[in-house]
C-alpha cells in the first residue's frame, strides 16, 4: 500500500488534535475533514473551501453531530481515567518498555487486542497504544486511487478522495464483526457507526458528487 507523505502525516496529526479537542478517543473520517481544513495549505483544502467547507463551520457542525448522538460526547482520556484510579500510565509505559523492550510490548499489545474466535480475555484496545484510527477504509480507497494514478505517496488530496469515496461506498461485510463493534463501543461510538464525514459535509452543504469530481481534477492536475 502507498505510504502517507509528510504533508498527509501533518494532516493526520491535525486531525488527531481536532479529535482531542472534541474529547473523542478515536480518529474518524470526520476528524480528517477538520484536519484538512485546519492544515489549510493543500489543494484538498482549497477544493473543500471552494465547495462550502470552512473550519469554524465544520467544528460547529461536528458539535451538532455530537448533540444528535452521531458521534460521542467528550470523554476522559485513558491517562485521565487511569489517573483517577491512582495509576500513572506514562510510568507503566516507560517501565514496561525499559524492562521488555518495544518489540515485546508491541507483540503483547497485538496478542491482547487481536480479534480471535474464542474471545477469552480479549480487549478491543489498550491504553498503551494511541487511540484507534477508524479510517482504514479511507486509506484503502486512497491507496487504490494512488495505484490507479501511479502515485507513490498518499497526500492530503488522496486522503480527501478516500473520505469522499468512503462516504459513497458501502462498508464490506468483514468490517461488521464483534471485535469491531466492541472497539467502537469502547470509545463511545453509537451502534452502526460508519464514519460521520457524510453527515458533517452534508451539514456544510457540500455536494458530494461535485466535491468528488473536483478532487479528481485536483489529483490529475497534481500528477500531470
Amino acid at each position, binding site marked *: 500500500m502507498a505510504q502517507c507523505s509528510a504533508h498527509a502525516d501533518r494532516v493526520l496529526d491535525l486531525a488527531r488534535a481536532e479529535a482531542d479537542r472534541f474529547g473523542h478517543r478515536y480518529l474518524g473520517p470526520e476528524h480528517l475533514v477538520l484536519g484538512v481544513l485546519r492544515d489549510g495549505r493543500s489543494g484538498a483544502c482549497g477544493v473543500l473551501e471552494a465547495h462550502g467547507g470552512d473550519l469554524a463551520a465544520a467544528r460547529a457542525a461536528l458539535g451538532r453531530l455530537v448533540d444528535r448522538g452521531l458521534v460521542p460526547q467528550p*470523554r*476522559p482520556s*485513558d491517562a485521565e*481515567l*487511569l489517573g*483517577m*484510579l*491512582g*495509576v500513572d*500510565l506514562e510510568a*507503566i509505559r516507560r517501565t*514496561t518498555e525499559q524492562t*521488555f*523492550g518495544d*518489540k*515485546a*510490548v508491541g*507483540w*503483547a*499489545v497485538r*496478542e*491482547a*487486542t487481536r480479534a480471535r474466535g*474464542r474471545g*477469552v*480475555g*480479549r*480487549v*478491543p*484496545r*489498550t*491504553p*498503551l497504544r494511541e487511540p484507534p484510527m477508524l479510517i482504514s477504509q479511507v486509506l484503502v480507497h486512497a491507496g487504490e486511487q494512488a495505484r490507479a494514478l501511479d502515485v507513490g505517496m498518499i497526500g492530503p488530496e488522496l486522503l480527501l478522495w478516500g473520505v469522499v469515496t468512503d462516504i459513497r461506498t458501502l462498508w464490506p461485510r468483514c468490517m461488521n464483526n464483534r471485535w469491531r463493534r466492541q472497539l467502537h463501543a*469502547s470509545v463511545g461510538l453509537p451502534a452502526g457507526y460508519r464514519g460521520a464525514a457524510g453527515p458533517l459535509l452534508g451539514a456544510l452543504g457540500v455536494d458530494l458528487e461535485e466535491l468528488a469530481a473536483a478532487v479528481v481534477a485536483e489529483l490529475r492536475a497534481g500528477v500531470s
Partner: protein
Amino acid sequence: MSEAASSEVTQVAAATSSQDPEVGLAAVAALRGLVEVLEALQVENARAKGWSWQQIAAHLGVTKQAVHHKYAGRRFGFRR
C-alpha cells in the same frame, strides 16, 4: 499505611465507586486493557524461562485449564 498510600486507596475507591457509571466503567475498562497486555508479557516471559502452565496458573491465581485455554495457541516466542 503511609499517607500517600492512603490517599491512593481513597482515589481508587472514589473512581471505582464513581456515581457516574460511564466514568467508572470506562476507568475499569482502561485498567483491564492495561492488565491484559502486562499479563501477556509476563506469561510469555515465564514460558521463555521454562515455566510450566501449572506454575504460571498458580502465580496468576487461576486454574491451569484457565491459563492454558487463554494462552495456548498464542504465538509465543517473538524475536527480541
